[in-house]
């Protein structure tokens, strides 16, 4: 019973792999992950579980660095990050504290105002008195993370499914933000990245006819400082500290004063007397019982707040504006983070320099569809060419046919892996497949020639020793291919990592599974019994 399995395990392994690939390609369980609000059938492109990349599905990819300078190994002297930022901003004519990010965890400070030059920043760092090691171009990890989060947020908000944002590092250590948005053209993606979303604070207040809203009591430009989300000192809540600007051109009211006025006019001080008083906008937006502050992003209300009684009183008495600080409180930390992002929304913490130091690629859906068909035709014709050569050379279907089938099984297994990993198929990956057919058949030729050389194969022992000899060459050749391709896998050279990954995977599958199986098939066909 076990004997046939033992004798043919190589072939059986190949069959198992092919079945596994079929499952990965077609079983709905291995289907692509769905984006929020997307059904499985929408996420699936075609009958298989394969995911197509930008080249074949259409879309836009932008890769660009964030502009700024970073001072490294800064000695904070125990000062708070906000104070450090303010001190350094004070030494710069063309930057405010919100253009400076001090990150104690990285011992770094960055400036993201594009007009600040390296020497200006250096001079400001020197003047501020904080010791530092050096100035490099680029921004801090913290700023990159915030930028990444904001871009992801923007993409999600527009309802584009499958848009991704990553940070990638080049050979020279420079960081790039890599944004991929399927199905969108270049101009809509760049405007999405560059546009400033309008963030404003409105006041909703009760009237006899239900809720009325006073719009734009604060707009984005009115904030002097936007802190990052923080956990509340007491209790479970979280908050975003903000400061409203208390400066204005001659003869005009400062934003802090006009906001204070608006809050006092809507009677916040009489509505909020204890910590139990809450804004009820989220329960009944059309009929609020108390005035509420509304945080609005691009015309949509994303959050509503009541007001701390003390704060409301200080606004009513008119003493608040000089300081201008308040906290936008939330119940969850993640919500506070989202609000902090929304307040900055549009405003990435640093500019993405697409045309100066970046690269972008955009392909229309129809062009992608064309590429998909063309590369399929190219691949099939390449396989026919290989098959034709093999038949012409051996003129024996028993040798040539299994050769072609084995090489195709290799590609099929690779497609299964791509589906399993949800690795997007790009033109470069298809080139990798064709390369795999090429190397695969090469090795099968080596096996066939070796096994059939020197007369008839009249015993299993003869076959095995010849097969082992052939395998030394195949193993050595596979090792060189893997070594030659591995730099591409890790270097950031566009799509070519896909080419390298699939060539290497193909070689591995070939050496470990398909080529030994071909040896077994050949043995069964050739061994003289």
């Amino acid at each position, binding site marked *: 019973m076990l004997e046939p399995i033992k004798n043919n395990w190589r072939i059986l392994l190949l069959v198992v792999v092919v079945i596994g690939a079929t499952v990965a390609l077609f079983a709905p369980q291995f289907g692509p992950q769905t984006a929020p609000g997307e059904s499985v059938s929408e996420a699936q492109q075609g009958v298989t579980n394969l995911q197509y990349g930008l080249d074949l599905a259409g879309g836009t990819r932008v890769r660009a660095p964030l502009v700024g300078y970073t001072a490294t190994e800064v000695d904070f002297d125990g000062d708070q990050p906000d104070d450090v930022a303010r001190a350094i901003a004070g030494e710069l004519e063309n930057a405010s504290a919100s253009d400076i990010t001090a990150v104690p965890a990285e011992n770094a400070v960055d400036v993201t105002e594009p007009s600040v030059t390296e020497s200006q920043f250096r001079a400001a760092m020197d003047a501020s008195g904080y010791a530092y090691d050096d100035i490099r171009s680029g921004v801090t990890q913290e700023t990159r993370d915030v930028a990444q989060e904001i871009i992801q947020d923007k993409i999600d908000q527009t309802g584009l499914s499958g848009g991704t944002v990553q940070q990638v590092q080049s050979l020279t250590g420079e960081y790039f933000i890599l944004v991929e948005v399927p199905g969108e053209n270049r101009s809509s993606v760049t405007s999405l990245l560059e546009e400033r979303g309008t963030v404003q604070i409105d006041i909703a207040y009760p009237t006899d006819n239900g809720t009325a809203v006073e719009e734009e009591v604060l707009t984005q430009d009115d904030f002097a400082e936007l802190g990052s989300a923080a956990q509340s000192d007491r209790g479970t809540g979280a908050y975003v500290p903000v400061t409203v600007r208390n400066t204005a051109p001659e003869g005009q009211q400062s934003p802090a004063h006009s906001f204070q006025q608006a809050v006092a006019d809507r009677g916040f001080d009489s509505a909020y007397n204890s910590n139990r008083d809450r804004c009820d906008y989220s329960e009944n937006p059309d009929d609020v019982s108390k005035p509420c502050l509304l945080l609005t992003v691009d015309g949509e209300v994303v959050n509503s707040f009541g007001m701390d009684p003390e704060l409301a009183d200080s606004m009513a008495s008119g003493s608040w504006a000089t300081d201008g600080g308040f906290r936008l409180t939330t119940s969850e930390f993640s919500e506070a983070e989202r609000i902090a992002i929304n307040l900055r929304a549009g405003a990435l913490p640093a500019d993405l320099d697409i045309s100066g130091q970046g690269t972008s690629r955009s392909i229309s859906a129809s062009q992608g569809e064309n590429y998909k068909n063309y590369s399929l035709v190219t691949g099939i014709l390449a396989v026919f060419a290989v098959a034709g050569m093999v038949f012409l050379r051996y003129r024996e279907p028993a040798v040539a046919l299994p050769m072609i089938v084995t090489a195709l099984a290799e590609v099929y297994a690779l497609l299964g892996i791509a589906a399993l990993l949800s690795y997007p198929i790009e033109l470069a990956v298809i080139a990798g497949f*064709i390369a795999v057919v090429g190397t695969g058949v090469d090795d099968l030729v080596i096996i066939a020639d070796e096994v059939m050389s020197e007369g008839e194969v009249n015993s299993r022992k003869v076959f095995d020793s010849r097969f082992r000899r052939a395998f030394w060459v195949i193993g050595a050749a596979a090792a060189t291919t893997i070594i030659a391709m591995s730099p591409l896998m890790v270097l950031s050279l566009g799509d070519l990592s896909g080419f390298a990954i699939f060539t290497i995977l193909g070689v591995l599958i070939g050496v470990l599974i398909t080529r030994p199986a071909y040896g077994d098939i050949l043995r069964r066909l050739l061994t003289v019994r």
Partner: protein
Amino acid sequence: MVAIEVPEVNYTEYSNRQLVAIPLAVLVLALAIIGGWYLVTGAPANLGLEFTGGVELRIADDGGNVEQQIETAFDRQPDSIRSIPADDVYVVTFRAADEDPEGLANDLSAQAEEAGLSTNAIDQVSPSFAADTARTAIFGVVLAFLGMSVLVFALFRTFVPSLAVVASAFSDLVVPVAVMNLLGIQMTLGTIAALLMIIGYSVDSDILLNNSVLRRTGDFYESVSRAMRTGVTMTLTSMAAMIVMAIVAALFGVDLLRNIGIILSVGLCADLMNTYLLNVSLLRWYKFEGVKQ
């Protein structure tokens, strides 16, 4: 039906010096072409968009006189306009301008839109990014070549045969680059991938030959002809796949696949020559004279 028979070469008729002369001459010529290119253009090859920076637009050819429209649509003169009939598109390339690379892609796509042209794809690469890519690519090729060399020396552990493999792999890399220059093919990321692939592919037949001569018993010439029968079949099959890929992809305007196809075809051709002239003669010298010393 025509059968492909790998011809038997009677190596005994030629001296080592005669055999080596051809591949060496080709190698020297290729190096001279690349060197000349460097002196004249400042780069060893025709660098493509990815290595120089610039913008490439694929503009749909929906009938009418699109080509004339393209000529007048942009306020900068395109550096090249290529028609791809099978895909109904024109590929229009603009080199990065030294004076002002800012906003070029936006401007160009806006200008195309104004002129009523529909853009199927835009590729934009900034010059500084391109320079970075070029450095990374060179680093990658060098690293791959060194890795391969170390591995070959580790596999055979004899100096001359290992050197023969490495030398012929070097020539396999240099010859396609020179041919690319002559054919006017640009160096792109796809061609870099192809060059790395050559390192992997071409070494196969060299390893097969060395293995057959060094590790197997039997007469030198018998070993060579046995390795050759297999090796030439291998190389021809791969070449057939690559030539077909190059032709089909060129018709459809899929540049990445076309470039990989062309480079690999040329590289494999060079490999046939290098393996069975250069490598064989070095091995024969090693076998008959080198060992005795």
